[in-house]
């Protein structure tokens, strides 16, 4: 451990702290983790987001040392971790089912890493007290884990993982077992904790809203590969590929045939689109419009409001409208049979009826264009939350 820690001291905040290089984990013919390259910055909150079996947890396990890579490198501060056993990595970890020691009190649970390190009694007590204060569990110090609520147990687990001041904290779906309200509270606490401590956190979740709330960067996993990496904003607004577009949030996909680099036809209508490198004339491309970026206007409204330059318009028929409280959605089908959804804040109003003819509008700049995709990418179920 000491060698690794010393090496870590040389790393400046914001520099790369952890590097995964060509990381693989195979089980027989199955590649659970398939040639992953990733740099994790010192002090950042990075989330591995993906559905179960996408390889996110296996990657985290390799970082912790519970899984051995089939090939590839894990570097922390430039030093290889691959041959360092997990108990000497000096990494903190919080598990999904809390994994507290059931026979020890809260205080002794938190003190466990310090007892292993044979700290003096006074120093141990001082650090444990500081941790109990940090997670606001001073009053519960003498309870057993079984006498705590799920949220309190997870706080103890966090304190136990932080008490020996690791540089890196791994969290494997730590809030998965909690109900929604408590989850959101703990997410806020966790974000504040991260800001206060400046520790590097690698977080695994299958919940995209959680990933958005917590992380500075998100790595989206699919079939053992990282298929998208960036801030939640970047990944949502400009998904790098059709899979990420379909996986994150909701999306409308239209298949267009290009007529020039910047225009295309869809069901006979001529549409403008972003300039897209690699798109040849006459090629089929995929257009992605977020439901909240599109508008559905009744025929009368469309006649009143002229189409702005840079905007597209196609006719469609309303199939269903749904009121969802904060927002409302309107499902439509185009003349060619492509289903689309438009979403708007309830406050904006969308007085449409099923069966009504509408004009669908969106700004060409708001729609992403993909030249390559697979049909499976467009299937929401493949990356369901």
């Amino acid at each position, binding site marked *: 451990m000491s060698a690794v820690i010393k090496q870590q001291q040389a790393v400046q905040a914001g520099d790369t702290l952890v590097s995964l290089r060509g990381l693989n984990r195979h089980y027989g013919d199955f590649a659970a983790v398939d040639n992953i390259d990733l740099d994790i910055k010192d002090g950042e909150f990075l989330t591995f987001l993906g559905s179960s079996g996408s390889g996110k947890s296996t990657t985290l396990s390799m970082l912790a040392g519970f899984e051995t890579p089939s090939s590839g490198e894990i570097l922390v501060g430039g030093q290889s971790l691959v041959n360092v056993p997990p108990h000497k990595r000096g990494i903190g970890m919080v*598990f999904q089912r809390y994994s507290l020691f*059931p*026979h020890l009190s809260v205080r002794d649970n938190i003190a466990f890493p310090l007892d292993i390190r044979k700290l003096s009694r006074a120093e141990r007590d001082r650090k444990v007290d500081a941790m109990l204060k940090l997670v606001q569990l001073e009053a519960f110090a003498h309870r057993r884990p*079984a006498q705590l609520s799920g949220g309190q147990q997870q706080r103890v687990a966090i304190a136990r993982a932080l008490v020996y001041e690791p540089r890196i904290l791994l969290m494997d779906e730590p809030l998965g077992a909690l109900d929604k309200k408590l989850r959101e509270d703990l997410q806020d606490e966790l974000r504040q904790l991260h800001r206060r401590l400046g520790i590097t956190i690698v977080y695994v979740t299958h919940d995209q809203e959680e990933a958005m709330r917590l992380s500075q960067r998100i790595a989206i996993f699919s079939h053992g590969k990282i298929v998208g990496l960036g801030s939640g904003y970047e990944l949502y607004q400009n998904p790098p590929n059709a899979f990420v577009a379909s996986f994150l949030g909701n999306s409308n996909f239209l298949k267009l045939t290009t007529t020039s680099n910047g225009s295309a036809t869809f069901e006979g209508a001529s549409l403008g689109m972003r300039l897209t490198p690699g798109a040849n004339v006459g090629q089929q491309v995929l257009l992605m419009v977020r439901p909240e970026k599109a508008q559905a206007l009744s025929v009368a409204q469309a006649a009143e409001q002229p189409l702005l330059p840079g905007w597209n318009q196609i006719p469609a028929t309303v199939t269903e409208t749904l009121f969802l409280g904060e927002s409302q959605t309107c499902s439509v089908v185009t003349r060619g049979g492509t289903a689309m959804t438009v979403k708007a804040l309830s406050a904006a109003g969308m007085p449409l009826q099923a069966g009504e003819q509408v004009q669908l509008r969106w700004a060409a700049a708001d729609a992403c264009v993909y030249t390559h995709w697979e049909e499976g990418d467009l299937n929401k179920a493949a990356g369901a939350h």
Partner: protein
Amino acid sequence: MLLTPNAMSRRLRVGLYLTTAAIGLFLLLPIVFIVLLSFGSSQWLVFPPPGWTTKWYLQFFANPEWMAAAWSSLKVAALTTVFAVLLGLPTAFALVRGKFPGRELLYALFTLPMIVPLVIIAVAVYALFLKLGYTGTLFSFVVSHVIVALPFTIISIINSLKLFDQSIEDAAVICGASRLQAIFKVTFPAIRPGMVAGGLFAFLVSWDEVVLSVMMASPTLQTLPVKMWTTLRQDLTPVIAVASTLLIALSVLVMVVAEIIRRRNPVNA
């Protein structure tokens, strides 16, 4: 429950009560008889006893042969317990955690002594020890008892190990403990009820084992059940009832202790 009192006719309910009581009596009566006879004044094991006495107990405790047998039984049972747990613990870990071909087969092999008729094991072990010249030794008693006790110990420990969430052990490891430290500091305390139960099972198996023990016994070394068996063939003294009562008493005590430990431990409860 499917049969709520309301939905069940009164007659059926009374019938069930009576059947249950009959079965309970059938199981309990021999024990009750033996205990009562051990306090009976008749030396011919007459029931109901014409009067009450504790003289058979005094006779039992005054007889060096009975005392030696009881002491041997305790020694054998204690050693069997220790070795069954020491062997059962790593075996259970290998069978639960190990990923190797033939694991299921190995499990079947370890539990085989529960299925194979005892007398076959007894003959086999006897033949072996006869050849090696170990019959009549403490060693032969303990080894043969461990063979039949081990399956109970292994199954008991396997059950608690399967219930134990291994990520708790992983948590200890990531906290800085080596795998061995983690097992000793975290896993063993967590599966202690299973270990204790496994040990008590081993004790009980050894304590009232008679088939193997008869084979292993020598004039100088015999266990309580063996002494009862040989005495019974000579005369029918109420001291046998005393020995039986003591045998039962210790077994019940062990079961009660096991239950108390199980209830007190918050883990895996």
